[in-house]
């Protein structure tokens, strides 16, 4: 028990888990110190920090904390690469990439559509229905949102029509997976193909080769009077889209609903133990139907944000895999609204960063596009390996 000797196991000094987390933090810091506002211009401190992080990781592995330990090492390695890149690039380049206020604003913009879809996924999967069809439901909201806004000359109607279309497609998924007890993953895939076909077909049918009209009524940005011109906060939050705020407000709202209300409890009980829920008289099928349809409407709202809120037009396959990213964000976030929010912000930040980096160095920007996915992969392997989905997620319920 000679404290200080290298032979001492971490368990005697500090718990391996804490050590691994310290390693993670140290590793991440290795990169953070080289970017503004700290902006260290030599690589030495980063190497020291990353080495410490890696050692902490390795040490925690000997103490039995394998996953987090490996993760700390991986993060340290990635961070050193990042640190080398930032030290080598010019000071002005760094300043233009890491304009934090603009980065925050862009992160919110990219995270909003993901957030809606991920929250939809939380609702659906809490009730026990896997929803791989989020992508297709988003795409429906995307196209029919534009269609509604164009036809009825108001973004309000666009959002409403978009949400209805997503809800209708979700109802198909609900019918197959709840009523017909289909394989829910397969059914969700069918939904995605169907949405791709429907939106593409009707885009061509209604608008032809010229695409959607230019003067679409769009969801306005919220200009907050007090802070709009107040430096960092003003740029970051002063001019965000209305739907971004709606999405952010939905996170605590949904958390409250799921964990503090009667119907939230019922929804979760149907996802965990449908037999027990049925025994106490809850309409299992009905609750699941409602959850899936609402999840489709949420996803469609995310899609509508893309088209009616952000771009102002629709192009084929516009969601481009965002529904799957949202799905990953939901799992990354451990099937909880707050977790989903953080995961969506991570993905949004990755997109925002790669945008910024691309403007300076297109080649490097491409690699940054892949960064959120790499991080998610690392996280899926480590942190959330321990989390678990709702107990009856994906299992059809058969009433006896």
């Amino acid at each position, binding site marked *: 028990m000679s404290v200080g000797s290298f032979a001492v196991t971490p368990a005697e000094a500090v718990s391996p888990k804490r050590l691994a987390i310290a390693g993670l933090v140290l590793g991440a810091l290795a990169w953070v110190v080289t970017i503004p506002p700290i902006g260290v211009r030599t690589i030495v401190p980063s190497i020291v920090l990353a080495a410490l992080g890696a050692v902490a990781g390795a040490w925690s592995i000997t103490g039995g904390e394998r996953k987090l330990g490996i993760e700390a090492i991986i993060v340290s390695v990635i961070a050193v690469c990042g640190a080398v890149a930032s030290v080598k690039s010019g000071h002005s380049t760094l300043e233009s990439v890491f304009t934090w206020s603009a980065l925050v604003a862009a992160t919110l913009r990219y995270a909003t559509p993901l957030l809606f879809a991920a929250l939809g996924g939380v609702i659906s999967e809490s009730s026990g229905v896997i929803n791989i069809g989020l992508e297709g439901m988003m795409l429906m909201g995307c196209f029919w949102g534009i269609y509604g806004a164009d036809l009825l000359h108001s973004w309000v109607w666009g959002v409403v029509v978009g949400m209805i279309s997503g809800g209708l497609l979700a109802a198909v998924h609900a019918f*197959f997976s709840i009523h017909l007890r*289909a394989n829910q993953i*397969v*059914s969700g895939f*069918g939904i995605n193909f169907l949405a791709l076909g429907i939106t593409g*077909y009707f885009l061509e049918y209604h608008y032809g080769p010229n695409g959607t009209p230019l003067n679409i009524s769009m969801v306005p940005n919220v200009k907050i009077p007090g802070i709009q011109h107040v430096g960092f906060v003003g740029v970051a939050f002063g001019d965000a889209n209305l739907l971004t705020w709606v999405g952010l407000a939905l996170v605590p709202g949904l958390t409250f609903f799921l964990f503090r209300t009667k119907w939230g409890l019922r929804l979760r009980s149907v996802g965990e133990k449908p037999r027990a829920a049925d025994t106490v008289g809850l309409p299992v099928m009905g609750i699941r139907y409602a959850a899936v349809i609402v999840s489709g409407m949420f996803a469609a709202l995310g899609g509508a944000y893309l088209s009616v809120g952000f771009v102002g037009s629709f192009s084929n396959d516009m969601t481009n*895999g965002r529904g799957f990213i949202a799905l990953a964000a939901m799992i990354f976030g451990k099937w909880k609204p707050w977790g989903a929010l953080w995961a969506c912000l991570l993905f949004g930040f990755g997109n925002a960063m790669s945008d910024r980096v691309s403007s300076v160095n297109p080649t490097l920007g491409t690699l940054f596009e892949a960064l959120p*996915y790499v991080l998610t992969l690392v996280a*899926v392997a480590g942190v959330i390996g321990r989390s678990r989905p709702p107990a009856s997620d994906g299992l059809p319920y058969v009433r006896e």
Partner: protein
Amino acid sequence: VSLLEDELETEAEESPGAATRSPAALTAFRRGASGVTVPILTTVIAFIAGGLIVLATGHNPFSTYTSIFNGTGLNWLFPWVSGAERATAAGNLQQTLIQATALLLVGLAVAFAFRAGMFNIGGQGQYTVGGIIAVWVGSSFAGMPPVLHVTFAIVAAGLAGAVWAGIAGVLKAVTGANEVISTIMLNWIAIWLGVYCFQLGGPLQNPHMASTPVSSTVLPGARLPVIWGSSTLQGLDAGIFISLALAVVFGLLINRTRLGYESRTVGFNPEAARYAGINAGRTWIKVMLICGAFAGVAAALDILGWKFSLFTNDIQVSQIGFYGIAVALLGRNTAGGTVAAAVLFGALLTGTSDRNISLSIDPTLVQYLTFMIEGIIILLVSTDVITLRLLKGGRRIGVAIRRRPSDKGGASEDGAK
């Protein structure tokens, strides 16, 4: 599958004719028949539904489907088609088979995972990584003997795909990471890796075409020989034989080897497999390695057979991973079924492509019609109940017609319960 058997079981019990034959024999017969009938009926329903959409939007479904069919080149099989029409049909059929070559292998990559109880959404990424390696090997190593060069490129691409899928397998086995998520992430990483390699200024971009984001072109010695049609007009290459041979390998692997047995056992019940002394984790890794190899080889056959180079745009818009899932599902994860489904999807893709000039309506509309048909097929595949009910209803009507009307026995009362 169990649901399907339930339906058939109940049907065997309810069926009035069942008493005359042994119920087990009857069930076995019907199960065998439904293995073929259900997918075919599923496809037919999907086409009818698609036809209704065409009709609803003011086009003629019959002429649309006729021109799609002619676009697939399958009319080449009719002896009465001759002359210029026959030449066009031959060209189209070659395209259909070219598409089917890769679809089959990606389908097998998904099917093998399904048999082991895993969902491999990563076909796209495995295909992309295989393509990157195939085009790199194929365009480098000038002077290598042709047969060796082709083999080297195919094997390297297969290995690359195997490694890519293996990551997901290892993560699942070691940390319990859900393969659905990890393969989706690996897809995106592979896509951005490919874009990085071939974009302007990327490490593998064609040095002779500085302003085009494209890889170097595969050397003539590394190309697969064309076996049917013109070698300049993208005739059918020898890759289809490799693809079909691998389908046979797949069938043998699943049904005749220890690994196949272990995979199926793990897929059926990992817990029971553990009691039987099968290491589920190791099986998952092996299965993913094989899946990835299939998808990697698919990319190599595309690159060495007819693409010869890889544009960043090709990488970003490719949907082959998702088609592969549809192919595997419709083919019920068997070798023969996957071959048939791959030809069907290859035909759909060719018949609705822009180059099909005989189309009576806007080709873009038809392309999206295809997506809808595929969506409906996959939805119906996700549950056999609808198709089975229809099948059952049809049989009951048949029974009712054959029997005297006075005969009691509930021929169709509960046919639509």
